[in-house]
């Protein structure tokens, strides 16, 4: 095994551990922090089923963002849907026999990368063109967009410009999953692409990418509007009742 292959194998195991462990820890933190008061943004659903539907609309269609700003919605939606399709397309590298769905979306996933990068470019342009968004942008906001666009472009270079050794790459990826390590093709675009993806995985649990688990724990979106019918009580708040109950 070459030093390069060994390096990337190590990198990906570290990245995977940080991503999974870090996210698990964050989710644990969010879950164990109590929400002492009923604070859904109303009008809100009055049943748990209604809340699941609200959350589904939020996650699948970005409902609140659509209400808010059509440009951000358009660019954000292009990026996220594009990314979802691209990720699904990549599943073929990690399973020996891709199923019907994964096979079906291959061509869509290919062109979805264009939507993804276009959406990112639109979001980035807003950081320069809209004075309000320029004011709130930090260096890390710009770098995050640069990172995602670089991942997209390096991936697209392999799809649309110069193909990498796809058979060998699949062997490498499958090898990572099955601990049966195989050599990595030493292609420049691929190395850049894989390095940046690993970097993204590593910073995920310590960056604003935490909006992904965060939205599910947002009390203004995930609470049922039923405070007159149900008594919501956090453990630290219940202790107060005992003092002067």
């Amino acid at each position: 095994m070459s030093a390069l292959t060994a390096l990337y194998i190590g990198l990906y195991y570290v990245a995977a551990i940080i991503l999974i462990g870090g996210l698990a820890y964050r989710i644990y933190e969010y879950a164990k922090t109590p929400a002492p008061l009923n604070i859904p943004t109303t009008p809100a659903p009055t049943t748990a089923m209604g809340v699941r539907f609200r959350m589904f609309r939020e996650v699948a269609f970005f409902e609140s963002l659509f209400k808010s700003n059509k440009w951000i919605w358009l660019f954000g939606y292009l990026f996220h849907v594009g990314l979802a399709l691209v990720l699904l397309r990549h599943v073929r590298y990690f399973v020996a026999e891709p199923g019907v769905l994964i096979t079906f979306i291959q061509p869509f996933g290919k062109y979805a990368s264009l939507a993804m990068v276009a959406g990112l470019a639109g979001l980035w342009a807003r950081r320069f063109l809209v004075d309000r968004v320029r004011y709130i942008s930090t260096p890390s906001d710009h770098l995050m967009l640069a990172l995602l666009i670089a991942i997209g472009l390096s991936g697209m270079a392999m799809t649309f410009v110069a193909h990498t050794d796809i058979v060998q790459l699949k062997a490498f990826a499958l090898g990572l999953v099955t601990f049966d390590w195989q050599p990595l093709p030493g292609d420049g675009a691929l190395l850049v692409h894989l390095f940046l993806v690993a970097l993204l995985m590593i910073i995920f649990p310590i960056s604003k990418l935490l909006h992904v688990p965060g939205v599910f724990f947002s009390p203004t979106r995930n609470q049922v509007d039923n405070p007159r019918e149900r008594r919501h009580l956090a453990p630290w708040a219940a202790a107060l009742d005992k003092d002067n109950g």
Partner: protein
Amino acid sequence: MAAPQFEVPKLSDTAYTAVPKVQEGSMAHMKAFVAGKGPQEFLGYPHELGEDWQERVIDRMGLALKKYRSLRVFMDACVHCGACTDKCHYFLGTGDPNNMPVARQELMRKVYRRYFTLPGKIAPWLVGAEDLTKDTLDQWFNYYHQCSECRRCSVYCPYGIDTAEITMAGREILNYAGYGQKYSNEILGKVQKIGNNLGLPGPALEDTLAGLEEDIEMDTGVAVKMPLDVQGAEILFVTPSADFFSEPHVESLIGYAKVFHAAGASWTMSSHASEAGNFGLFNGNYEQMRKIAMRIRDAALELGVKRIIVGECGHAWRVAYAFWNTLTGIGYGGNDPFSIELQKQLDPRYKQPTHICEYTWDLIQQGVLKFDKSLNDHRTITFHDSCNVARGSRMGDEPGGQFTIPRNIIKAVANNFHDMAEETIGESTFCCGGGGGVLTDDLMEVRVKGALPRMNAYNAVAQEKGVNFLALICAICKAQFTKVVPYYGFDMSQVGGVHQLVSTAIKLEQD
């Protein structure tokens, strides 16, 4: 009205308020009066920063992050997308970028990142993390008192980030740093010492109510009562204390009394709980909010009432509707001894607590109340959805009942009604500009400028539809608009309550 010390924004030609260019620092001079030793000590806070203030601020912040999931998640989840940047009435009215919800949050987030996150500890310049300095603390004080906690931003945030939660936490931390706001903290003292926010003692309240009874009887020839501390009454009615003394608030109080009279209800107010408002909400202090709400529980248990009804007040209704059950056991579904004690006393046929608009609308639907709508014909009415009612509570059984029920009442008692522009009502409603602890003269510039989006929408229906009455269901909205509409060229008599309209049109039978 004294000549303003600042430029009053110009009304636009349409209902729409144009998004201003960013004007950095344009409201940096705006600082609320700082609370003195008396109110701070009464509430258990220090009254000066002291040498270890930084440590205490960071400790308090860590504690808040452990106690409130909202704060914990909201500190992490923001991606700076900009969706909220043009949604705050204070930004629209001032152009100060720190009044954009995300930037207001960022004042806290930059400290959070520096002290509580890995990237902020190792590369603060990269992620917008900053040391906690006295300048930052001053920014917190200034800009967390230029937020009315109206939650409009939370409607539009893709993650539901509610700046109100961050403002509340910010004020709470400031309080523990010894840097409280005079207006809110003095009121928090008065309500706990005397029983209401105005500091109105029991005997004065009794006199006022007796005087109002005489006035109504002179006006209508009907002996409408305003009972106080009646043991064994069926209904405990709790209303903001402004209703007892302020104009136009008192007109609504007369309206409630007439409704109870016409319904033949057995009701009482309480001198112990002579305040529905709860400024504990504004400071994000759970314990204080609970203490203030407990007065209502105590009064309900002592008087032995079966129902609790709340008068026209926005934040009071949010606390009552959404938090009373949690704080005091007023509601249902409790299975602990504390909540069962009260819940077994309350009549399960009714929602607890009930909003006065729910109560009145029920009676209208049952045909119990009769009106002469033509008595309101000199008015062409629009309705302002109060922020806390619109986005923090509900009326009736269906989501959105808080929008339809007050409008249904207005339409049942008056002939001329027009809504303001769609994007300024319902869940998109603009705050009056005076909510959340901002209703003080030392913040008049914030209040006037923050009212701009509402004033533009009101001006549009005034011009196009001849609207001359802004109907409200909130004591703060009433006080704020009465003071602020003259800056925009309207007469303060155009401001009033929904139950003021009810009072005008209701037919009372002679005894």
